[in-house]
């Protein structure tokens, strides 16, 4: 894992997050939460294909994924690939409440699941938890 200096001059391991969301304003909101949690956004993809090629280059620690994307692959398939080939943690955000989608998501054992509309703080908290688990957040933050 690479490191960079934070503002206080101590080395913090980087925590790299890929955002996959085709609605640009909601993507902006997701990016805001990632930054609020002190993580780094390695890219924003609006299609599954773009997400997979970004991930091949940058190997994200975590991906925030919308489920419904324009055309296949959808967010769940993207998540499955990211999880198996890069070991990325997965956080799904979806507006869909249907049980079939829900059970496909559950089968991947994601790190988090947020039903839209979610509170920004919920996503920030999830990413902070993920950072603690990866050991990229040193010490306690609360």
């Amino acid at each position: 894992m690479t490191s960079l200096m934070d503002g206080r001059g101590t080395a913090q391991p980087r925590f790299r997050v890929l955002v996959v969301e085709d609605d640009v304003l909601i993507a902006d909101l997701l990016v805001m939460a990632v930054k609020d949690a002190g993580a780094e956004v390695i890219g924003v993809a609006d299609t599954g294909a773009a997400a997979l090629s970004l991930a091949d280059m940058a190997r994200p620690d975590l991906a925030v994924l919308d489920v419904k994307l324009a055309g296949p692959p959808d967010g769940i398939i993207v998540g499955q690939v990211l999880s198996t080939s890069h070991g990325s943690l997965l956080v799904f955000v979806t507006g869909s409440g249907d049980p079939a989608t829900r059970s496909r998501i559950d089968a991947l054992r994601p790190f988090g699941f947020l039903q839209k509309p979610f509170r920004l703080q919920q996503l920030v908290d999830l990413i902070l938890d993920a950072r603690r688990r990866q050991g990229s957040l040193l010490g306690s933050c609360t």
Partner: protein
Amino acid sequence: MNDATLVHGLIIDDDPDTRRLVRRALESAFPGIRVGEITDEASFSAALQRGAPDFVITDLDLHWADGLIVYMRVRDRFPFCAVVMFTATGDQDKAVEAMKTGLDDYVVKRRDHQYTRLIASLRVAMERRQQKRALEVTNDNLLAAVEEKNVLLDELYHRLSNTLQLIIALNTLAGERVGDPACRSVLQGINDRIHALAALQERLYRTKDLSKVEFGSHLQALAESMVQTQRPRISLSVEAERVDLPVSTAIPLTLLANEFIANAVKHAFPENRAGTISVVFRRESGALVLRVADDGVGFDRRPPSDSMGMHLARRLSAQIKAALEFPQAAAGTTVALRIPFAS
């Protein structure tokens, strides 16, 4: 069955005399009838490939196949085709067994009146299969309509959730660009109200009953999401009775609960100090009572009465004919809402 419609049937029997006599009886009973005679596997398979017959008359004892298997193959391929067995005396037991698996009837070959009985049995069987088919079609149509409704509802719900998230994104992004903390707080307040309504919406969708909603667990989840995610140092106690409410009450009551809880979260514990918020929702002598109490800094910190929160509280409690009360408390602030409720 109307005799004027053209009937199409099959006779499966090894004996040419039987086939001839049955055909004669059928032709006089059903003018214009088309009858096919099956004498071996080849003619049987060919008949199965053609369209569904209205009826099949079959013997059990066949030189080329087991009559029961022949019956099963017809039943399997043409569920609405009437099948009547026309059998020798010794085969009665087998025929009775076949009745249990959907054979319409059997007629024993005897000397007298056997063809009259066969025709009568056939008429009843065809009538019944027709009704069954009509019922099945109606049923399929109903199932398709329900399925379509569910798909539309899912789609609508998905759109709604996304749109609410979009509105929240717009407010949040706007908040990022205004420096004025009061302005940002107003935008945040609007987002909180949208969240409260969206949570109610999700509960309605999940219970699949769009007219009423169980309010107690909704209130509990709402309070937890408002207090625990935003202010972990405030401890929350919720005592919420499970009560089904019509949506027309649940919506304003959701907004009211949101105002009361948000008010306590924002104003009762300044400088991130610790404390307790307690939320009670229960039946009390002909009324529903919602009470939100805190042990924070007290009454004088309440916002002026022209604030948005107070304005909403007054207007919405009037809408549901509820009495809004601020009982004196030893510490902090208590707000109570008394809603007339006939249980």
